[in-house]
C-alpha cells in the first residue's frame, strides 16, 4: 500500500529559523497521520480481508487509505448489531436521548476535523462546510429529543369493545442496514443514521463509497459518547460489494436504500426473501430539511397488547 506521507498538510507553522551553528538538524516535526479503519462492535479493526483503498479529495489528491470492507466484515457487523440490539432497545428512552446528545457534544469538539474532511470530500469552501457540520451536529440534537417522545406520539390506548385494556406501542424493528448517501458524506450520513438508533434500532452503515473519511471520524465521536459498542457499525468500501450481502441477510430487519443508486431495485428484490422492511431512496433528498418522523417510522413495529380486565 502506498504510504500516506504525500498527503498535503496545512502549513500551519512556518519553518523554524536555522540555528546559527551548523550543521542544521532536520527539525520539521513529522505529523502523525490517522489510520482510517472500520468501526465494528465498538472497536476499530482493519478489514478482515487485509484490503484497503486509497481515498482522494474531490480534486483527486490522495487523502488517506480507508479499509476496504469485505462481505465477511458485513456479516460480522450484523452479528455485532444483533447482539447490541436487545440491550440498546431496553435502555430507557431518555438515556438513549442523552447518549445521542453526547454524540453532538463530541462532534462539536471535533468540528475542525469534520470541517476539513467535508472541504476535502465535497470540494467546497470552508463556510458552507461549517454549515454542513453545524447541521449534522444539530441533527443529533434533534433526534436526541425524539427518543422519549416517539412512544407517546405514535402509541396509545385503543378503545376496544369488551372487558379488555388494549394498548399499541412502537418498538424498534431490530438491525437496520443503512446505505449512507453517496454525495453527502457527513450530513447525509447523520440524517439517515440518527433516526435509526434514536428509535432503538442498531445499525450497520455502509459509508459513502467515494468519501468515507467523515464516517470514520464520526465513528470516533460515537465511540466516545457512551454509545454501547455494536449499536452503530460502520463499513467503508464498495457499496456494490457489501449491500447485496446486507440486503439478503436474514438477520437484517430493515434496509435504508438512501445511497443505493442503481442497485436499489436489485437490493429491494433481495430483501423480499425475508420480508425485510425497505425504505426506498428519495430522488432528490434535501438533507437540510427538518426531517420530522419520516425516517423514524419506517424502522418501527407496532406492538398491540390486550389485557383482560377482571376483579
Amino acid at each position, binding site marked *: 500500500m502506498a504510504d500516506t506521507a504525500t498527503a498535503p498538510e496545512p502549513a500551519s507553522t512556518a519553518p523554524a529559523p536555522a540555528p546559527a551553528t551548523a550543521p542544521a538538524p532536520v527539525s520539521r516535526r513529522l505529523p502523525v497521520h490517522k489510520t482510517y479503519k472500520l468501526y465494528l462492535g465498538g472497536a476499530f479493526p482493519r478489514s478482515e480481508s487485509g484490503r484497503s483503498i486509497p481515498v482522494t479529495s474531490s480534486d483527486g489528491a490522495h487523502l488517506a487509505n480507508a479499509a476496504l470492507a469485505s462481505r465477511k466484515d458485513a456479516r460480522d457487523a450484523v452479528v455485532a448489531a444483533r447482539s447490541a440490539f436487545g440491550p440498546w432497545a431496553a435502555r430507557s428512552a431518555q438515556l438513549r436521548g442523552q447518549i445521542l446528545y453526547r454524540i453532538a457534544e463530541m462532534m462539536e469538539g471535533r468540528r475542525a476535523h469534520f470541517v476539513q474532511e467535508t472541504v476535502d470530500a465535497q470540494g467546497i469552501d470552508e463556510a458552507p462546510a461549517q454549515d454542513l457540520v453545524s447541521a449534522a451536529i444539530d441533527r443529533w440534537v434533534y433526534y436526541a429529543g425524539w427518543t422519549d417522545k416517539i412512544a407517546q*406520539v*405514535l402509541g396509545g390506548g*385503543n*378503545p*376496544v*369493545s*369488551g372487558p*379488555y385494556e*388494549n394498548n*399499541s406501542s412502537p418498538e424498534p*424493528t431490530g438491525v437496520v442496514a443503512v446505505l449512507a448517501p453517496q454525495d453527502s458524506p457527513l450530513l447525509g450520513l447523520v440524517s439517515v443514521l440518527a433516526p435509526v438508533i434514536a428509535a432503538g434500532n442498531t445499525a450497520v452503515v455502509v459509508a459513502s463509497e467515494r468519501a468515507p473519511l467523515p464516517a470514520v471520524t464520526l465513528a470516533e465521536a460515537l465511540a466516545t459518547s457512551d454509545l454501547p459498542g455494536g449499536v452503530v457499525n460502520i463499513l467503508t468500501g464498495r457499496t456494490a460489494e457489501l449491500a447485496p450481502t446486507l440486503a439478503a441477510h*436474514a438477520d437484517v*430487519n430493515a434496509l435504508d436504500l438512501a445511497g443505493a443508486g442503481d442497485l*436499489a*431495485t*436489485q437490493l*429491494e*428484490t433481495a*430483501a*423480499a*426473501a*425475508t*420480508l425485510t*422492511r*425497505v425504505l426506498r431512496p428519495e430522488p432528490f433528498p434535501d438533507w437540510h430539511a427538518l426531517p*420530522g*418522523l*419520516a425516517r423514524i417510522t419506517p424502522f418501527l*413495529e*407496532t*406492538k*398491540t*397488547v*390486550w*389485557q*383482560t380486565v*377482571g376483579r
Partner: protein
Amino acid sequence: MSDRPTPHTVSTPQESGPGALLYAPAPESRAVVSLRAAYGHFIDGEFTEPGEKTLVSVNPADEEKLAEVSVATEADLDRAVAAARRAYDGVWSRTSPSERGKYLYRISRIIQDRARELAVLESLDNGKPIKETRDVDIPLAAAHFFYYAGWADKLPFVSPGVPAPRPLGVAAQVIPWNFPLLMLAWKIAPALAAGNTVVLKPAETTPLTALAFAEICQEAELPPGVVNIVTGAGATGRALVAHPGVDKVAFTGSTEVGREIARTLAGTPKRATLELGGKGANIVYSDAAIDQAVEGIVTGIFFNQGHVCCAGSRLLVQESVAEEVMHRLKERVARLRLGDPLDKNTDIGAINSAAQLARIQDLAEAGRDEGGEQWSPPCELPSRGYWFAPTVFTGITQAHRIAREEIFGPVLSVLTFRTPEEAVEKANNTPYGLSAGIWTEKAGRIPWTANRLRAGVIWSNTFNKFDPTSPFGGYRESGYGREGGRHGLEAYLNG
C-alpha cells in the same frame, strides 16, 4: 348414543356418560341465502356477464356446488383498474370527506341489516361454524366500516406532523379464505375512508360474500368504480398486484406469496401492506388460572378450525403444570362438537378446501414421522366434505416441522419450558412474529413477557380477540404494515 339425532355432530365418550349433555340439532336455515348459478365480476358498479372460464365454489362441509364464479382475464383486470382510476379521478377524490364517510356508514348499516344472510352465506362458502360467522365475522365487518367511516373527515389527525395527507390512488387488494367478508372489510373500509378506490380479489374458494358485498355497494349507491370486485385464483391475484395501474397493494395470505409480492413491487413506486403467516406461541405459566388458560388454548388453536394466521399453534406450557394442563385440555377438546357448520351448537366446522386438508394431513404425518405423539378425541368425521379432527401433538421439540411451519389447521404443538426466559426464547424462535399469548395471574409478568416477545399482537389472559380500533399485523416474516385503528389508515395515505 343410539338416539343421537343428527349425523352432523360427533359423539364422544364423555357425552354418553351419566349427566352427559345431548344436543338437539339446531341448524340455521339456508333459505335466507339466494345465489345465482353463475357470477361475473363487479366492475364500474355493474355485474359483468359470467366469463368463459369459471371456478366452482363448493360448500366444504358437503362438497356441493354453491355457484360458479368467473376467472378474470387480463382484459377484465384492465377494465376494473381503469374503472377504479376513473372513479378516483372523477368522483371519489372530489367527494367531500364527510360524504365519503356517510357512504361507509351506509355500508356498515346494510351489513348489519343483512347480517343473518351474510352469516349463513359465509358459513356455507367457508365451512366455519355459524356461531362464529354470526358472532364474529359479520359483526366485526360491520364494525370496521362504522369505525373507518368516522375517520373519513378526520384525516389530518391520522399521522402526527402530516396536516394534509393525500390518498394513494387505486388500491389492489387480495384477501384470503379464512375470514372472507371480514378481510374484505379490513381492506376496503380504510382504503375508502382515506379516499382511495379499490379493486379487490377474494380467495378462489370463498368469493361469495365479496359478491354479496358488491350488491351492498349498489344498495348503498356507492359511485360506480369506487369498489370493483374481480374473482379468480392465484394467477388473477398475481396479475392484479403487478398491474401498472395500481398505486397500492394490500395482501393477506401466506408468507410465500408475500415474498413474491414484495419481489414484484421492488423498484416500483407501489406501496404494500402484507399480512402474512404466523406460528404464534401461547405461553402458560404455572401460576395461570388453568381453566381459563385451557379455554384460551382451545380458542387459540381451534377457533375457525385453526385457519387463523395469528393462531396460538404452539403451546408453551411451564413444566410444573404441563401434566395438569394437558389433562384438562384433552378433557375440554373431547367436548368440542365437530360437524354441520350451520348447526348453532357446532364448535368446529369443515376444513375450507381439499387442498388445505391435504396440507394439514401432510404436516400431521410429518409430526408423527418425526416422533411426535398425536392425540385426537374419539371423533367420527362426516363422510362427505373436508374434515380434520382437533389434534394435539406432544413430545415436540423446536426442531420439529410442526413446531416451525404454519399448519393453518386445528393442530396444536405442545412444548414445555422451565423459566420465563426460556419461554420467551422459545416463543421468539421462529421467523414469524404475528401473535402470542400470555397466561399468568402475576401482574408484573404480563408486561415483562410482552415486552420481550417479538410479535405484533399479544393477548394476555385471552386469545384471538379482534377490534376495529386495534392495530393488527406482524413483525419479521409475518409481514409489514398494520390493519385496524389509526395505524391502519397510514397505509393508505401519503405524508
